[in-house]
């Protein structure tokens, strides 16, 4: 990155403006704010979870060994016009041995400036740990944001990441997953909604390094206008990684004839006793389904909306926290309706 922001450039606002504070935060959630890469305050939650400032930009999240935190942490990162330089952020997430915790990462922009944000998220899931991460991305049309998730998953550990991409000029999510210990599980899911000239890129490299691991990927996108979605999903099964189970699916619903979806599933299997599958589709609206709905009195635009919501449904269903799932479902609905001030809890359209 050209201009890595230095701390001295940053003008600290002592109080977070009221309008950014969610009036109805998700129950059981503790919120932390990151402004232009700087964590506003360090947080420790009873039960063994802490959030600290990274030496550069970004934060360090840690779920202590054996901890089971009932409350989940919501990290709301936003960029605003106080710093329009390109910035790099590096976050570290440690899910220590046997811990069980959930994390919600939301990213936003609060102005139409041409933000360029490059982010690395190093994720270490230690033996037997359970990590549940939901990422929600909702940025302006001038925002370019690239996130590089690097995961290392130990034996009997389980990580689930659901990425809900609602808006942004160019949003790229790369995942490099290393399943290092036997019986590790990695479940990656994503939903991206793109329109206008937006572009969403997903690049996954799922590496099964040892036997008996399970990975699954379900990425779905709804593309309107001249938007573009690219999905590259690579599954690599090492020669001795027998009994691997690895699944991948990428499905795109094209609302406009100008939208483009590129899917590149890639399987490299060097072991011989594995179960792997991949599937990629691009389709248009189901006319039979639309007619069925209209024949019940549902107007054409409402019928189209229902069909899009139905398409998004199975990815949203992967979100375990029921309240969060409901909020995201509502946000997806208002996004598809094109009325993006639907969530009136704050001005950020966060969840």
């Amino acid at each position: 990155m050209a201009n890595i922001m230095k701390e001295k450039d940053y003008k600290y606002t002592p109080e977070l403006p009221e309008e950014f504070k969610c009036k109805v935060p998700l129950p059981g959630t503790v919120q932390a704010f990151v402004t232009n890469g700087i964590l506003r305050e360090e947080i420790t939650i009873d039960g063994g979870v802490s959030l600290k400032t990274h030496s550069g930009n970004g934060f360090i999240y840690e779920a202590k060994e054996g901890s089971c935190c009932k409350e989940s942490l919501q990290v709301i990162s936003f960029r605003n016009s106080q710093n329009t330089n390109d910035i790099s952020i590096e976050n570290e997430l440690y899910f220590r041995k046997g811990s069980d915790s959930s994390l919600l990462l939301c990213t936003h922009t609060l102005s139409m400036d041409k933000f360029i944000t490059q982010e690395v998220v190093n994720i270490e899931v230690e033996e037997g740990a359970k990590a549940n991460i939901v990422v929600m991305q909702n940025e302006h049309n001038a925002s370019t944001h690239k996130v590089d998730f690097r995961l290392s998953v130990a034996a009997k550990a389980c990580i689930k990441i659901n990425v809900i991409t609602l808006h942004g000029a160019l949003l790229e999510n790369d995942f490099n997953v290393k399943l290092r210990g036997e019986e590790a599980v990695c479940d990656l899911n994503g939903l991206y909604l793109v329109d206008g000239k937006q572009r969403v890129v997903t690049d996954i490299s799922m590496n099964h390094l040892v036997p008996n691991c399970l990975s699954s990927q379900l990425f779905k996108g709804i593309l309107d206008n001249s938007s573009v979605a690219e999905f590259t999903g690579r599954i690599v099964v090492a020669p001795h990684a027998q009994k691997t189970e690895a699944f991948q699916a990428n499905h795109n619903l094209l609302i406009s004839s100008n939208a483009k979806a590129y899917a590149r599933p890639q399987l490299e299997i060097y072991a011989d006793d594995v179960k792997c599958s991949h599937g990629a589709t691009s389709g248009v609206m189901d006319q039979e389904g639309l007619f069925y709905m209209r024949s019940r009195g549902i107007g054409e635009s409402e019928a189209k909306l229902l069909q899009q919501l139905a398409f998004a449904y199975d990815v949203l269903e992967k979100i375990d926290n029921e309240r969060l799932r409901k909020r995201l479902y509502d946000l997806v609905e208002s996004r598809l309706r094109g009325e993006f001030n639907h969530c009136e809890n704050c001005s950020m359209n966060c969840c």
Partner: protein
Amino acid sequence: MLKIKGLHASIDGKEILKGVDISVNAGEIHAIMGPNGSGKSTLSSVLAGKETFEVTSGEVLYKGVDLLELAPEERARQGLFLGFQYPVEIPGVSNVNFMKTAINEQRKYKNLPPISAAEFLKMMREKMAVVEMDNSFSGRGVNVGFSGGEKKRNEIFQMAMLNPTLAILDETDSGLDIDAMKIVAAGVNKLKTPDNAFIVITHYQRLLDYIIPDVVHVLFNGKIIKSAGKELALEVEERGYDWLING
């Protein structure tokens, strides 16, 4: 209530309906029978407004209004209902949401406020009982993983919820065992009033043992070749269609 005059319709340039005339009054049940490929499903699709069919001539007046000018949803909002031969699966949309959306869209059209949650639940419970549907259906995706019989019962359930003035049931009996057929028929009989009307499209006479029609039409090669009372169905059952086609 419904007057179909000289209706011609085609798909991809191929003429399927070649001049259909039917007149249905309130309080009546009409049955349309006919061999495969005679145009029965085309007729129901055209009446419901499926855009893949092109009406080349003729007219359809429904409650005095030109039905063919209306969009499918407008027809539904004015009380027309089509029970599909092959109900469509909509994964991700629960029966509850689907019905609530449909009812509220219809209410909005009539300038009524959205239905209250309590009223809606009560209605769901009542109407599910009509077709002996289990409450677990309501949370499931529309027709997803339903058996053939369950799908057809769901059609009758939706009809009960929407309370149409004119219901067209397209081969609702196909793929049903005798018990499911009795449930479907009982549903229709419970919903029948002097103010509404039904058009029952069927392949077999069997259904008409349970839903007694006032008029039976035989459709062949895109035309009604015979209309008579309920005894016509029995005659068709006994003698087949040949005597009508060749006679």
